[in-house]
């Protein structure tokens, strides 16, 4: 049995997202081998009923987005598809930056975002993680549920992803020079 078959079987058995790290522990192989296995599995699953979703850390299996309406009918629980303007802004920041701190989100939106971040966390569209580069702060990241609602396997599949990243990098550069602590303070008054 080869590695991609094993990965597929474990993901199927688990029925939840699983980290690459955990997979390499379970299968007792290097992270390079896992990456290779994931790539092969992705190729196998092209044009199948099942798709492989991924973010930086985890992977998961789901149904192909093409069958969305079929499963919506079969699904018992009602889906909440409404997003307010504030939610859309906040989600687009978190998605296209692939994770953002509250200070960053507040700065971009020019308002305090603590309530909207809580509401989106409760809906399971974003999740809070400790920032790897600074463990005193949190990073809000897109969840698999969010990617699922958007029908994408990863953030790279978002509309105009590459083009937008370039655009955002230019805009960030312009701001970087003038970004003052003062602005962060002004917009993040409530804790």
């Amino acid at each position, binding site marked *: 049995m080869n590695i991609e078959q094993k990965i597929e079987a474990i993901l199927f058995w688990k*029925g*939840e997202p699983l980290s690459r790290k955990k997979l390499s522990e379970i299968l007792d192989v290097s992270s390079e081998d896992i990456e290779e296995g994931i790539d092969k599995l992705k190729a196998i699953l092209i044009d199948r009923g099942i*798709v492989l*979703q991924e973010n930086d850390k985890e992977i*998961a*299996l*789901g*149904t*192909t*987005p*093409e069958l*969305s309406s079929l*499963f*919506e009918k079969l*699904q018992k629980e009602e*889906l909440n*598809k409404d*997003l*307010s*303007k*504030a939610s*859309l*802004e906040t*989600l*687009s*920041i978190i*998605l*296209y930056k692939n994770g953002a701190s509250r200070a960053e989100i507040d*700065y*971009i*939106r*020019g*308002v*305090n975002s603590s*309530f909207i971040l*809580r509401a989106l966390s409760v809906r399971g569209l974003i999740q809070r993680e400790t920032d790897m580069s600074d463990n005193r702060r949190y990073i809000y990241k897109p969840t*698999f*549920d969010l*990617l*699922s*609602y*958007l*029908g*994408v396997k990863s953030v790279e599949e*978002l*509309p*105009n992803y590459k083009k*937008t990243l370039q*655009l955002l990098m230019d*805009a*960030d550069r*312009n*701001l970087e020079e*003038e970004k*003052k602590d003062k*602005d962060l303070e*002004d*917009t993040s*008054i*409530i804790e």
Partner: protein
Amino acid sequence: MESVINENKYKVRTSSFEGPFSVLLSLVEEKKLHINDLSLAQVTEDFIRHISTVDKADNTEVSSFMIVASTLILIKSKSLLPNLPLSEDEEKDINNLTNRLKLYEIYTNLGEDIRKKFGKSIIFSPLEKRQESVVFLPDSQITKESMMILIDGALGRMPKKEFLPKIEVKKVISIEEMIYNLTERIKKSVTISFKELNGKIVTKEEKINAIVSFLAMLELVREGILSVLQENNFQDIIIQKTNNL
């Protein structure tokens, strides 16, 4: 006036708070303009007027609008009085606002893309599997005491409605009030200096009032009631009554 916004159009509700960037961007986009000093100068009055519709009970809201408003006033003044000297900080503020608004615009547009895609073709995760022959496997951490402490903690961390930011509201003079005061004082004296009009500007509140009165002055200039004289770059601005008052 040509650029009056419909008072009902930007009604702000605390639950769906439209921030200053959102309001400013709608004003610019409504005029089908790009974001730059020129377009921002054009929408300054509409933006200031909008502040009067912001829920005054929420101090955070008003102050976040005021910060943006003060920069807009600078942009406006510069466009009306090209000789007006601006400090390095003020120039920076102007640049910063323009750039931040451009960045905000990018994300608002991305938000539109997200809206179009969200919920249209969904990837479904497998259903929760039926539990067959469940074995009871407790954990020694589960005790009456630990359960009580944990639920206390969880309930304690919930945001409390009554603790929403409702700090005492600072009085901010409305633009209409200010125009009225200004007109009254100008009727009395033909010439009045801007500094004289505002007294010494020290506190933040006084600064906001100065901003509002300055804007009111510009308003009157536009309506042809006043004419503004600034003899030298660093001198005081002299407001003078025109004949059609």
